[in-house]
């Protein structure tokens, strides 16, 4: 049996039946758009849920992690549970004291060679479901599924929150993307279908919903 994709998206089951224009990113399906641009722009402004599970990710863990990442040219966030953008536009999240999540668009953006790792430094295998959440109704929606105060005064611009959303352990940051405030959420891939369904159901109640990659990252995947 021939399969177009190499790696299964953690939200593919939940997305069955939706009309989608898809592409392959890092071997995994990612949706470029569901509806026409106008509808998706509307959704983005109200409450857009964009699946970016296919982004490239590497986890690193160990006492020597900071040293080693800096030696590889990464600017490492200084404090535990903070993040920053790296030179190539990817994200470096410091999860707790000595674990890191590096995320980039393409595999090439994260030039990590695991075999390169010294002793006591380990690659953390990951399978994330990940979403970008945008729109004016984010706080109303999240006040239903998250107990934390996510207002800007309580949720610092560089903070990494490890908490629970809709009953699932997640990692949360907020970010300026194309000048707009968005939120990024990661959870274990096995919860992907549930999280996608829950977020898009709630988003729909605010006039928002699923939006494709093209809304945030116009035409970044060529030949799609």
């Amino acid at each position, binding site marked *: *049996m021939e*399969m177009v994709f*190499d*790696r*299964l*998206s*953690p939200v*593919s*089951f939940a997305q*069955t039946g939706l009309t989608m224009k898809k592409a392959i990113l890092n*071997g*995994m399906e990612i949706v470029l758009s569901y509806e026409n641009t106008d509808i998706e722009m509307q959704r983005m402004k109200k409450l857009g849920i964009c699946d970016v599970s296919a982004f490239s990710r590497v986890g690193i*863990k*160990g006492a020597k992690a900071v040293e080693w990442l800096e030696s590889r040219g990464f600017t490492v966030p200084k404090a535990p549970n903070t993040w920053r953008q790296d030179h190539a536009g990817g994200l470096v999240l410091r999860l707790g004291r000595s674990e890191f999540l590096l995320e980039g668009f393409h595999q090439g953006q994260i030039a990590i060679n695991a075999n390169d790792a010294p002793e*006591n430094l*380990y690659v*953390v*295998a*990951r*399978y994330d479901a990940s979403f970008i959440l945008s729109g004016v109704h984010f706080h*109303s929606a999240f*006040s*239903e*599924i*998250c*107990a*934390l*105060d996510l*207002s800007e005064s*309580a949720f610092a611009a560089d903070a990494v929150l490890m908490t629970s959303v*809709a*009953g*699932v352990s997640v990692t949360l940051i907020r970010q300026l993307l194309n000048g707009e405030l968005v939120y990024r959420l990661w959870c*274990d*891939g*096995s*919860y*992907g*279908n*549930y999280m996608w369904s*829950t977020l898009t159901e*709630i988003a729909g109640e605010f006039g928002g919903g699923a939006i494709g990659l093209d809304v945030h990252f116009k035409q970044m995947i060529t030949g799609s």
Partner: protein
Amino acid sequence: MSMRLQNTSGEWINRNNKIKFSFEGKDYEGFEGDTISSALWAAGEKVLGRSFKYHRPRGIFTLANHDVNIMVTDGVDTNIRADVVQVKAGMKLQVVNVDGGVMADKKRFLDSISALLPVGFYYKAFHTPRSLFPFWERIIRNAAGLGVVNFNYPRILKKKHYAHYDLLVIGAGPAGLSAALTAAREGLEVLLVDENAKPGGSFAYDNAGNSAHHAQLANMLSEAQSLPNLTVKTNAYAAGYYADHLVPIVDESGITKVRAKAVIVASGAFEQPPVFRNNDLPGVMLGSAAQRLIARYAVKPFLKGVVVTANSYGYRVALDLIASGVEVAAIVDMRAGGETDAIASVVANKGIKIHNGACIYEAVPVSGKLGVKGAIVADYDEASAQADTQKSIQIDCDGIVMCAGWAPAAALLYQAGTGMRYDDQIHQFVPSRLPNGIFAAGKVNGVFGLNQRLQDGARAASDALKYLGYVGNDTTVESFAGSSPSHPYPIVMHPKGKNFVDFDEDISVKDFIHAAQEGFDNIELMKRFTTVGMGPSQGKHSNMNAIRILARIRSLPVNKIGTTTARPFFHPTPIGHLAGRGLHPHRDTPLHQWHAEHGAVFTDVGAWKRPAYYKVDGQTKEQSIQNEAKAVRSAAGIIDVSTLGKIEIHGANAAEFLERFYTGNFKDQRVGRSRYALMLDESGVMVDDGVACRIAENFFYVTASTSNAAAVYREMQRWNQIWGLNVTFINVTGAYGAVNIAGPLARKVLQKITLLDISEDQFLLGAVADTSIGEIKARVIRVGFVSNQAYEIHVPASSVLKLWNLLLDSGSVDGRVKPFGTEAQRLLRLEMGHPLMGHDTDGLTNPFELGADWAINLNKPFFIGKRSLQIIRKRPLLKKLVAFSFKPYFQGPVPCECNLVISKSGQIEGRVTSLSLSPTLQRFIGFAYVSPVNTKLGDVLSIRTDSGQMVEAYVVQSPFIEGD
């Protein structure tokens, strides 16, 4: 006749919008803003409900949601509280708990046989003869309910939201408004909630015939609206207090879970009734109820009334009655000294006769007790609570207002852990020790008088500001000079009773006396025996009088009686509200869609969805499971085991860690080999098992059971906090998926798609190797759980589907690789003689009972549970797990798992833990615990089936089959 008044300043009704509705089959018209009760009262109706037990006619009593005299159903919803629910166009309402309508309720005869139905009567009657109990039970169940549940009630989503504020103020009366404004002016984010439709509380209705203070109220409300950091929420009640200032606010749309940094409780107080015979007739109501009827709904409470009061409040109410055109026939003041404040003169100057040191001995009913026609007024002796009936007069009236004082609405303060004390000056419980961050203001704090309450609210806000690290002003609260707002004992005894204390439960004074006589004379026992405070109002109008009566019976001061605990929720809260959206997180394996498309019937294992079996058209569930198992035995089967726990253990001390954590040996384990890993708790009980693979000298890859995966990882982390070994743990349970392929064709199918040499002599049972399958990086472990020829393949989660399809493709040549689910897996492992943790073991099973001695090395210096095993080993074994079977053509009833094994002497010897029909052996096989002396091959097990019939099985060799 219409009791509607002319336009009243501040009224809540909108006379431009008429609302048509029906009640008890008759049409009525009210105004937008009316409650059901106020609209009906305006129309001249007085009998609006029937009491719970005696079915006595009832009307408006508290009009504050502190009683349930008037409950109706609209056909969809039931137990609608007419006093506080707004009337809506088209409502078709019926009274609950009546048979034949509220006027002609067939159960009204119960009132006349009430002597046969004292409190607790159901504890003494109906139990003999026992044969009649089912008959009585049906009658009692019918009689004991209120509204009838509509099982077709639609599911309406009521969302639950979190909200964060600096300060939560509960109650928007004078104290609460003042507190909220004071705090908001300093910049705090404030939420002010009030259960009423509009804020203001008594500020707006306790007028005493004079509305000068309304201007001040209007200013405060206007300021509240102008402050962006002050949110006012009406029609919302604070349902309870939970740790660290979590207060759920309930309104029609759902629940807001408010987390505040500080809370001010300004919830006011419940007005309490004086107790006299027939104080429950329609037309007898509390003073504040009359004030609310007049001020909010522009409704006259009655035409001609008597005011009985045990405090100064009655005089204020009298002035409001006079201003609304009610003829006040008399004031009956229960206090010997009467009222000393100037207000008494104001009332007297209006020509109202005041009887001091008098009481209403009884309210005189009209025929059928459908209303009041008079009041018998007599001299009253406060010490004995007796009326002097020698000198009594009857005053004609169609209504009675009664005032006796207040009980603080302190439920949330109690729940927060506030210490309360009884203040002998004002005869009220007041806060004496407040927890951190909790403040009280106004009547609930024992502060009376309008100015005083306004000041107390500002004072509480100031305290809260200081608590939160802001600067607060010092506010003084002027003292209240008037007479006590509450009377210590507003009770009038009567030989014929029906002087009600609790109107929900129809409890009168003698019920308390009887309860005490029976020995239920402590507040907790008295509550439960009499049921006082256990009705829908939860004691709001009754608990204080009950405490006072018990105190007098026991000759103790009130503070020695105590109070029962007011628990959430403050008002009954719909279950739909509590459910909210109903979030049910679940985990899917990457193969979920494939399973769903191929007929999988899923089962929940923890949060995971796993296929139990695959449904095949024309086959029963049992047949499908048997066929899946047969496929594994005859060819090959594949099962999705992605849910297994998977933990990487890295570091120089990895093997040392495993030796301490599990029961077996790991230091001498060679790279490329896997070993059984058995985990015990400190008491030596088996907790979990899995497989530990040595991938490199300092790298073990360990599996754990699906349901315990998170707990095993957690415990590993915790133990290493203590041991401080050089290890790093990585939980890769979600990052990898896994598939088991098992059966005589397993090797052949797998070999075709991998370069790893898995021939029998090259890849023995227990071998593990990292390799590639297609382009997928895979870890292959030769396991022996469901078959001796079985391979567990671990790959990155995103590649499991690809692996699954490669296996199916590879096997399709022979056409016989079939998926199987957890049901078949359970059967197959049983045939192989493998006990299942959590199925064949329970919370007390030690490894010796399972015969797992081989997995334990007691010579190691330490492992979790070792010390306990050393002790257990010295004792005789109490039970042992054996394999058993029935004869091949066994005919008897098939036992179930958990059926007991009974010894020859009739004692419980053990139980069946696993039982399946083996398709390979065509016999029922299983595991059971038996006495250690009955474990020899051929020993008989007597099993007691569910029907009580005994069947015999016998001990056989384990494993049951070879499993190639």
